[in-house]
């Protein structure tokens, strides 16, 4: 096994720069998830690591080898594709054995490797079937099996769950996690789904427009997003962003003129500077309290146990979303008091970059 080091990876297709200098370190055995909106370059990055795309600039190292110019099969990687990409005319067994057969491994070794992978994935009864006779989840498992058989130093996953239905996706997510625990192989996983990223990753790499926005553990990214993009990309419902202006000692004036208390930041924003105040839906407290503001309930999305309540202050303003346990007492049109605990607020400057809180030091 080995770690992965990407240095200043650049890739252009014609005039379009898809990767604009991406550097990533994935430690040996780590499960790293690259997440970002579609078109951010995450699949290109993964395909470059696999050797399916040639970088325009930069380097890729796996373990202590520079693999930048090596053929895909010489890099010690295995990849699971979104479409599974199984060979339809071969049985499950033959699909999984294909790579070893090409490498001219001896029959007994191939058989052992295939059966071991099949046992790990619980697909022994399927070995003689053709892919057409398998369900989506089973195909996915075979695709992973084919990757395991190669005994790669690094697993690459390209949106492997996108083709599955919601229920199966949750189950496979769990299986990915336990598989990684079992095998301990360094993994680079690409997805556009922030839930997959949050639940699977040891570390998340948020990519936007060919650049890294932030790298960190799911917890770090959720609690201390480096900018508004990351703040709103992770977490559902999205973080509320309120435009405001710094006004006096640890205070800010909202667009409608009302004031809320801010956490201490270093340096403290000078009076009159534009700010964006972020607060996660679950951090808004309903009920009276110090500095509570009054809102009207404009809409309620009831999810069963939880409800997302839309709070409107003025007509035309984007409502705030607040998530709470649904006891069924609130109704649309109600006036409620809400307060924003200062320690739960995220402050961003005019460019959307987070202001460091004093307590971070």
């Amino acid at each position, binding site marked *: 096994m080995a770690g992965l080091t990407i240095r200043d990876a650049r890739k252009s297709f014609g005039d379009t720069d898809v990767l604009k200098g991406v550097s990533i370190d994935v430690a040996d055995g780590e499960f790293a998830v690259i997440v970002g909106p579609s078109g951010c370059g995450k699949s290109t990055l993964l395909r470059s690591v696999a*050797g*399916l795309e040639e970088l325009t600039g930069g380097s890729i190292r796996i373990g202590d080898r520079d693999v930048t110019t090596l053929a895909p099969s010489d890099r010690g990687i295995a990849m699971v594709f*979104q479409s599974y990409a199984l060979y*339809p005319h071969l049985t499950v067994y033959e699909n999984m054995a294909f790579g070893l057969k*090409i490498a001219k491994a001896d029959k007994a070794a191939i058989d052992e490797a295939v059966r071991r992978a099949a046992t790990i994935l619980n697909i022994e009864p399927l070995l003689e079937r053709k892919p057409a006779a398998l369900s989506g989840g089973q195909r996915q498992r075979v695709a992973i099996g084919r990757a395991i058989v190669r005994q790669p130093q690094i697993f690459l996953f390209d949106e492997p769950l996108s083709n599955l239905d919601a229920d199966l996706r949750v189950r496979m997510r769990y299986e990915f996690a336990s598989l990684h625990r079992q095998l301990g192989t360094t993994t680079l996983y690409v997805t556009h789904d922030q839930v997959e990223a949050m639940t699977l990753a040891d570390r998340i790499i948020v990519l936007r427009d060919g650049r890294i926005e932030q790298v960190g553990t799911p917890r770090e990214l959720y609690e201390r997003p480096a900018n508004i993009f990351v703040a709103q990309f992770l977490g559902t419902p999205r973080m509320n962003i309120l435009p405001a202006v710094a006004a006096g000692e640890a205070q800010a004036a909202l667009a409608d003129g009302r004031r809320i208390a801010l956490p201490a930041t270093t340096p403290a924003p000078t009076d009159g500077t534009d700010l964006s105040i972020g607060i996660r839906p679950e951090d808004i407290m309903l009920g009276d309290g110090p500095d509570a503001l009054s809102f009207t309930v404009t809409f309620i999305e009831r999810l069963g146990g939880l409800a997302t309540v839309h709070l409107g202050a003025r007509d035309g303003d984007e409502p705030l979303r607040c998530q709470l346990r649904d006891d069924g007492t609130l109704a649309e049109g109600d006036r409620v008091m809400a307060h924003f605990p200062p320690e739960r607020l995220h402050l961003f400057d005019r460019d959307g970059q987070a202001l460091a809180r004093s307590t971070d030091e």
Partner: protein
Amino acid sequence: MSLRRWTVTLLAAIVALMTIAPLLWMVSVSFMARGEASQFPPPLLPDSPTLDNYRMLFGTFGLGRFLANSILVSTLATALALLFTVPAGYAFAKLRFRGRDATFRMLVAALVVPGQIGMLPLFLELKAMGLVNSYAGALIPWLAGIFGIFLVRQYCLSIPDEMLEAARIDGAGEGEILRRIVLPLLTPIIVTLALFVFLSSWNDFMWPLIILADQNLYTLPVALAAMSREHVQDNELMMAGAVVTTLPVLILFLALQRFYLSGLLTGSVKG
């Protein structure tokens, strides 16, 4: 509903009968005695079936040789055509190389030029190469049919890139990918193409007539045509010759019908 279905079935039966009737009569006449088919009205079935015509064909005229020639030429034409068109079609669909699309557009444009126009220049070219009056010369036009390349390319476009990439990661070289992944997936279209080429080269008359001067090299259609000049009145004999020419390909076609049909369908839908 039922009446409608019966009508359709009946119409289909009539069309089928009209198509097959001449073929059946051809077989029937080939078993008739000399001059029997020239009576009026012509009989449907031989009065006393005889194999004389076939004996004469294979005995006096040595048709066996021409049959063997035809089998040889058509088989080689098919094999060579597949050898060149299948990899070419795959390359045009899936491999990245400079000028790929421009070259392909030119090829497709050339499809509209009728083959006959090229015959004279091709003949002169082959003459310069010293290939006139040889099977090599007879086979050259079949090597890389544009239609075949086109057919294979359209079919290859439906193979997902990810599958080929998976094979590349599995360590397969381009040749191995073609052989182990692409060819098995192309089976229906390869069978279709093989049948097309075999049928067309088997039935081809013009080109072998032009390029082959030595009688011993004649293929069946050319040999039969030469024969019919002397025996134009011998309907029964000519029909026996026609049976020998048609039957092998008819049997081949029927045997491969299953692949052939599925190939045409998939090709058209996915292409």
